[in-house]
């Protein structure tokens, strides 16, 4: 891996210490969601709709309730349904009516797998048997699975109370289109008039899932005094607390959420599914209840990322400068409104200076599970479309794809189509590093081999975080935080505190604690934790420095102003000094504990850019694509722990390759997903990927004390486009549909061969 081995500016940052949670994870001691077993725990099973679209005529739970061993049965009536009210969750908001109905359906089921009722019993087998006794009467409705079908007037309607927000004005007739919005800048018509070349293409991408290994789970205990404890693996303990309190109709102080380790989230473990249901079952039974999804449940009923339909047009002048861009982007929302089409519309032209542009976005309900965030939500679909069009323009202009991108790249001061002007960013630096890479300089020689390149952008987020720390007498520091760790953030945060205090990372003891034990912290999402919670860790470090100086002044009986903190040493007048460890040993002997606390809401999260170079070989007789070599170049701001930065980059690329080549929700005409297992939903395994190379570029973010930019999301953005471009250069076929699975690629190759035979 090409990367910084150490950052000369820092002592701890840029090194690769062993992660603090590593031993527990590699020895199997770490406790994930379903590893918790409170005394007396019983097991719950959900009854799910076998139909993609139906009215619920009746739900009869009486036979299930009578089965010996059954302790509680709940339906939609056991959750509060507060109507169309919006609950702000920090990163995003939810409509409580939709949330409540998505957890347990009220009058309608909107996708196959939609939960209708739940039963808890002494054993999972009794619960399964009881679930089979729940009688549901359905009035079947025609499902609408395809986004363009759903947008047509007269399409089957999912909701009678969803009215299109048409460019800010509420429509008066119900529609599957929840929202149509637009971003514009410049004069589009004039822009295209000045273009020497224009390309316009349509693109579709399939619904795909985050594919985390650990299924959703929740264990809840409602105690006689009205307190609810929820153990769950979630990206947001505080937002889970908020949603459970709303749906159980209890005060927020009555709910405590205890984070378990997470076996993958990628944005999919923010929305609650099981937590309110487990709590409702516990409230009825008085016992702790555990709910764990099967893999099929995870696929059929938890947030995939949207399939899309996009139509994009780009114009370029004779010199190779982009002059105009137009995008029509429609995203599947799933059963309830709220797809990340807004982010897609902001990202679609985010890598280039395009003076004249217009973007239309549509959020469309279809009979599929409600979509959730997935790693740079919306950006990957948009990049697939734009970056393959750019490749086509490069071909027309006979321009090197990296040179073309350098010529048009956004930089500090460039304005994005949705308004913001970029601060210092590293798009150009990633392109330069790609150009200078050994990979780029090594030509391909084999038959049916091709190289593709693509770039991508992701905003990253800031938001609210809290941290607190206590200095122990042995010189270690316990760091408490509320950001659940889905990507090595314990290490990244501990290192920022260690750097601030000038002590080794190993002396920090980072702990992710429950909602009663730390201040409000927004979700682990938007690549924000190392940035924002890191900011809190830094602030905590400064406060510890201050208190250390005061204590030393007290011990030395000198004026506090004469004492300073210098790289792990407390320095006083006349050569007096303590190392941090020496002072720590004095704390309890000389006064109160040293405890620091910080709550932050930092702005200035820097956007991230990445450039992907990928080589493929295509078996032209079967359409199978083999990835030969992959290099991701990414501006990470400052790499706190380079190994985990590389891990994020590799993980994003691996998921991007899966999205590109094989992953898709395959539905039959009745709206049943036919591949709801890891056998037929084909994520790449280690056999399908080469070593995924990374090149870390560091353009420090001026908005963070150590220059941190979020790193977790942008690596997934360019790979599908880069692969499409590589496939083109290997075979001469331009793929405009994801996934580029063997049947799709072979079909395109055979069609091209048939067309060229026809010409001769």
């Amino acid at each position, binding site marked *: 891996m090409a990367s910084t081995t150490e950052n000369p500016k820092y002592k701890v940052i840029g090194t690769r210490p062993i992660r603090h949670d590593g031993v527990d994870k590699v020895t199997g001691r770490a406790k994930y969601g379903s590893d918790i077993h409170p005394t007396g725990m019983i097991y719950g099973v959900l009854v799910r709709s076998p139909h993609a679209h139906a009215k619920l005529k009746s739900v009869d739970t009486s036979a299930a309730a009578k089965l010996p061993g059954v302790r509680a049965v709940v339906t939609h009536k056991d959750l509060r349904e507060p109507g169309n009210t919006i609950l702000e969750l920090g990163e995003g908001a939810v409509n409580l009516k939709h949330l409540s109905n998505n957890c347990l359906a009220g009058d309608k089921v909107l996708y196959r797998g939609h939960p209708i009722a739940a039963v808890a019993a002494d054993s999972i*087998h009794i619960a*399964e048997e009881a679930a089979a006794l729940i009688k549901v009467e359905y009035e079947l409705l025609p499902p609408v699975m395809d986004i363009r079908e759903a947008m047509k007037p007269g399409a089957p309607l999912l909701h009678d109370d969803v009215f299109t927000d048409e460019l800010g004005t509420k429509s008066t007739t119900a529609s599957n289109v929840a929202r149509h919005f637009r971003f514009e800048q410049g004069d589009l018509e004039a822009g295209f008039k000045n273009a020497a070349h224009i390309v316009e293409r349509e693109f579709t991408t399939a619904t795909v899932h985050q594919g985390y290994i650990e299924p959703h789970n929740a264990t809840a205990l409602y105690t006689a005094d009205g307190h609810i404890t929820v153990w769950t693996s979630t990206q947001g303990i505080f937002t889970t607390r908020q949603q459970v309190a709303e749906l159980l109709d209890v005060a927020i102080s009555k709910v405590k959420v205890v984070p378990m380790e997470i076996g993958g989230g990628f944005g999919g473990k923010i929305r609650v599914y099981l937590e309110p249901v487990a709590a409702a079952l516990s409230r009825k039974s008085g016992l702790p209840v555990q709910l764990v999804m099967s893999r099929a449940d995870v696929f059929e009923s938890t947030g995939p990322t949207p399939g899309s339909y996009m139509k994009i047009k780009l114009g370029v002048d004779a010199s190779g400068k982009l002059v105009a861009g137009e995008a029509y982007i429609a995203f599947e929302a799933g059963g309830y409104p709220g797809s990340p089409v807004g982010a897609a519309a902001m990202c679609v032209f985010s890598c280039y200076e395009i003076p004249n542009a217009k973007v239309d976005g549509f959020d469309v309900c279809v009979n599929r599970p409600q979509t959730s965030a997935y790693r740079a939500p919306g950006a990957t679909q948009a990049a697939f479309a734009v970056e393959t069009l750019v490749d086509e323009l490069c071909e027309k202009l006979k321009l090197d794809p990296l040179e073309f991108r350098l010529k048009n790249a956004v930089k500090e001061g460039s304005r994005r189509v949705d308004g913001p002007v970029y601060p210092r960013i590293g798009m150009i630096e990633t392109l330069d590093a790609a150009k200078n890479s050994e990979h780029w300089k090594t030509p391909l020689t084999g038959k049916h081999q091709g190289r593709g390149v693509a770039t991508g952008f992701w905003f990253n987020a800031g938001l609210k975080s809290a941290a607190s720390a206590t200095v122990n007498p042995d010189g270690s520091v316990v760091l408490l935080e509320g950001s659940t760790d889905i990507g090595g953030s314990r290490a990244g945060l501990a290192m920022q505190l260690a750097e601030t205090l000038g002590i080794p990372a190993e002396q920090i003891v980072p702990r992710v604690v429950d909602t009663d034990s730390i201040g409000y912290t927004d979700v682990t999402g938007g690549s924000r934790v190392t940035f924002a919670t890191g900011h809190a860790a830094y602030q905590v470090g400064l406060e510890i420095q201050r208190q250390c100086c005061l204590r030393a002044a007290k011990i030395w009986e000198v004026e506090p102003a004469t004492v300073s903190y210098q790289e792990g040493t407390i320095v006083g007048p006349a050569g007096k000094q303590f190392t941090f460890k020496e002072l720590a040993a004095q704390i309890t002997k000389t006064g109160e504990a040293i405890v620091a606390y910080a709550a932050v809401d930092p702005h200035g999260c820097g956007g991230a850019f990445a450039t992907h170079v990928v080589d493929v070989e295509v078996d032209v*007789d*079967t*359409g*199978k694509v083999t990835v030969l070599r992959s290099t991701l170049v990414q501006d990470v701001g400052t790499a706190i722990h380079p190994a985990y930065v590389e891990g994020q980059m590799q993980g994003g690329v691996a998921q991007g390759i899966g999205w590109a*080549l*094989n992953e898709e929700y*395959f539905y039959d005409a009745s709206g049943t997903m*036919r*591949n709801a297992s*890891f*056998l*037929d939903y*084909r994520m*790449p*395994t280690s*056999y*399908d990927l080469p070593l995924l190379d990374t090149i870390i570029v560091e353009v420090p973010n001026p908005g963070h004390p150590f220059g941190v930019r979020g790193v977790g999301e942008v690596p997934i953005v360019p790979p599908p486009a880069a692969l499409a471009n590589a496939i083109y250069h290997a075979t001469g076929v331009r793929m405009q549909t994801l996934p580029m*699975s*063997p*049947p799709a690629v*072979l*079909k395109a190759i*055979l069609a091209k061969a048939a067309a060229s035979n026809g010409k001769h």
Partner: protein
Amino acid sequence: MRDFEYEAPNSVADAVALLSRNGTARPLAGGTDLIDQIRVGRLKPDLLVDLKKVPELNVLELSASGLRLGAAVPCYKVYGHEGLVQAYAALADSARIIGGIQIQSRGSIGGNLCNSGPAADSTPSLIALGAVAVIAGPEGTREVPVENFCTGPGKNVLAAGEILVELKFPARPAISGSHYVRFIPRNEMDIAVVGVGTAVVLDAKKEKIVSARIALGAVGPTPIFAKSAGDALAGLPADETSLDKAAELARSHATPIDDMRGTKEFRIHVTGVLVRRSLQASIDRARS
């Protein structure tokens, strides 16, 4: 998961008696398909009859008259048997790619056949190698060529109380080779979208094909014996033109459907591609 009883007889007669007595009883060999089907509720047996302790089902015997493979012999023993790997290479090819190490340590070729999945990786190899199923039941013993064994997805000729005891293979001629290849979109953890097993016999000069058998998987409701494609090769030179001809004929045997694993047109095209590739590999093996 359903509560069931478990019996482990140690003779064919006892196994047949147990299976005949209880209408919902299912035979258990490796259990790698069966347990999963019970767990998801597709099968609801009250009794499982474990066949692994019956000696006849554990036979693995290679002799001048051919190969005997007990129905419960796990895959790892198949590819771990040097003589078998030499003479019946297609079968070893199949055994090596059925599941991972854990499945191969437990799952058997006999079970793969009795599960009767259209995409079963071993069945095309069994057909290509001319294997015969030896079946025991309440009415005695009978033999069925493997190409006639499967009757539909998950369905076969076994009547109530009958079990597969062993697979019998004729001896392989001196200058012969066999091979199995499947197409999967990934490189592991996948199920055949098309599978092709071939076996060829060459003449003394290793130039002409004396005879060939070709079988297809995952392109119809059962594994398919593409007899005409193999027969057409008899007497032809072992060259590209001949293989193209067999590939084209094999395509005409394929009756696939569109599903989540591939489209009909894709499967038909790839059937021809894999028949060519597998025949070439069989010829190369016969020549080496």
